[in-house]
């Protein structure tokens, strides 16, 4: 490991060889690299290192992990049932030691309901992204791999879908199919896959011209093999970043739909629904609406910080 390679071995070395900004000196000499202790590393470890140096991203990651934990174990760690009156039947009691987030209009523990709301939010977030990935990657792969006319036709479809305001269509679909978590996932997933499709297609279009793809094709690999084994794995990093931005979008979508009253049916607690229920008590018991609002806000901030951090970490050259 002591020998100095001619080419930078990892992306962290690439930083040294820097991009010319016009007036800065481009450092490419091995002499400079020599002064930096070389550690064997790989892209993933490099990215992790950069991610964990970013304080905001770490905070975001911690919050997201907390959400995932709460979402999975809500029924084990919550003090009460989500549709159960607390002992003593305190109606709209303010936050206290016994009820950290207070109790709501029908004496249910808000802390419990927020936890179960997190479960709905995360479930919708992940579900919607899975639907988006399924549609987006499939269409994007076809467009990117075949290019030419197939690409033009598919991208025209994508253009049309992207001009249609997704939430309006989601509202109409949901009104047509009725409330419920599966319908929400369907409505949001089927309307918001455009970014993923564009991203996949763009990546594949640039990758398919590279030598290793040509080599693979010459060696007789099938189109399916090339897409699944070569193109898709190499398009993963931008997709990961896109996913971290798509999840909060979906969470907001669910909160929005539940808030306007066509999302998830009570008594199932969701953050948007809790805001709608608490709205009428805003004057006297503001915590009923403000706590779920803050939950939505912190979740979206956390995902955004994490997404920004991931983008910087996975793409150190700042190409995107």
């Amino acid at each position: 490991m002591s020998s100095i390679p001619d080419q930078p071995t990892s992306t962290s070395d690439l930083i040294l060889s820097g991009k010319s900004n016009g007036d800065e000196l481009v450092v490419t000499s091995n002499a400079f690299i020599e002064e930096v202790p070389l550690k064997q590393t790989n892209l993933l470890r490099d990215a992790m290192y950069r991610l964990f140096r970013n304080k905001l991203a770490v905070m975001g990651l911690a919050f997201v992990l907390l959400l995932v934990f709460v979402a999975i174990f809500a029924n084990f760690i919550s003090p009460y049932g989500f549709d159960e009156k607390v002992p003593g039947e305190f109606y709209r009691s303010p936050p206290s030691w016994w009820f950290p987030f207070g109790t709501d209009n029908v004496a249910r523990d808000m802390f419990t309901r927020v936890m179960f709301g997190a479960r709905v939010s995360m479930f919708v977030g992940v579900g919607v992204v899975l639907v988006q990935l399924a549609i987006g990657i499939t269409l994007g792969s076809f467009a990117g791999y075949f290019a030419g006319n197939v690409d033009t036709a598919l991208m025209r479809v994508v253009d049309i879908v992207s001009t249609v305001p997704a939430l309006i269509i989601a509202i109409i679909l949901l009104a047509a199919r009725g409330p419920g978590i599966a319908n929400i996932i369907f409505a949001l997933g089927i309307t918001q896959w455009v970014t993923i499709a564009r991203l996949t297609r763009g990546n594949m279009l640039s990758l398919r011209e590279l030598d290793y793809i040509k080599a693979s094709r010459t060696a007789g690999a099938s189109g399916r093999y090339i897409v699944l084994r070569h193109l898709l794995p190499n398009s993963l990093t931008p997709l990961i970043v896109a996913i971290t931005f798509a999840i909060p979008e979906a969470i907001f979508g669910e909160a929005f739909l539940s808030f306007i009253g066509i999302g998830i049916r009570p008594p199932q607690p969701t953050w948007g629904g809790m805001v709608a229920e608490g709205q009428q008590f805003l004057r006297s018991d503001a915590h009923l609406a403000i706590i779920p609002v803050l939950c939505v806000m912190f979740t979206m901030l956390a995902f955004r910080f994490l997404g920004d951090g991931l983008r910087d970490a996975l793409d150190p050259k700042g190409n995107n």
Partner: protein
Amino acid sequence: MLRYIGGRVLWMIPTLILVSLFIFVLMHATPGSPFQLEKSSAEFIANQNRLYGLDKPLPQQYVVWISNVLRGDFGYSTFFKSRKVQEILLEQFPVSLKIGAIATLVAFIGGITLGVLSAVNQNGPLDYAGTLVATLGASVPNFVAAFLLLFVFVIVLPQTFHINLGFRTTFSGDPKDFILPVAALAFLPLATITSFTRASMLDAIRSDYVRTARAKGLGEQRVITRHVLKNALMPAITLIGPIFAGIGTGTFVVEQTFAIPGIGRYFVQSLTNRDYPLVMAVFLLYGAFLTVMVLMMDVIYSFVDPRVSLTGSR
């Protein structure tokens, strides 16, 4: 140019026909009928269906509906039975339009200003303020913004600090009543425009032609306003479509939060009531607005960027 715009306006007709077909088919393909909620006999429902022409075959219904719409007649609401849809629209729509338009203006003017200021003072305090707004705005959706504004200005300030700025949770059309809803609506688009403008300003500032402009001795202000700004405005213009869509959907939440009697509230209500005529009218209106916005975007584009040729090769 005029010919091009005329052509585009004509093209809006098939687009809108497609939109109308889409919403018509979707609304009629959904289970449930406008009269399902009423506790009435099957005969009554059949009579109602006949009255509204819902017993006819679907293609015929569509033709009747669309030809009435072309004459400006959207029919009677099936929920507010005695009222015509255009009456309801005329009553509710101006409020929504006013709030949406003000919010769009605030977002564009504020966003461009903030973006330019951050780019010109790169890494200065103004830049950090701009970045903060951009980050917060991008992750604080409109209904979070709406509730936080209500909470701070209607509850915390007057109740705890006894600072009453005169904001309230009701809406009477008073100019002051517009401030909070507009702020809630404009926050996210303002943030988006800020970050796009900042990025493209920074790109432009570093470009060769700006260096040339400086080298030939132009003052900084002239360089920024004449050379940088014009190019840096492009991304903000391309955002018109999505921002309009965002503000359009945002009105649902903001109207509900601030008790504004606008069309957004009616739209959701009429969807759950299966009020076909009203839903289809609002949807058509929305589609028409969106197509006009996209057209405006293209036209403005060609004015700002002479390289964009709308009429093809000249």
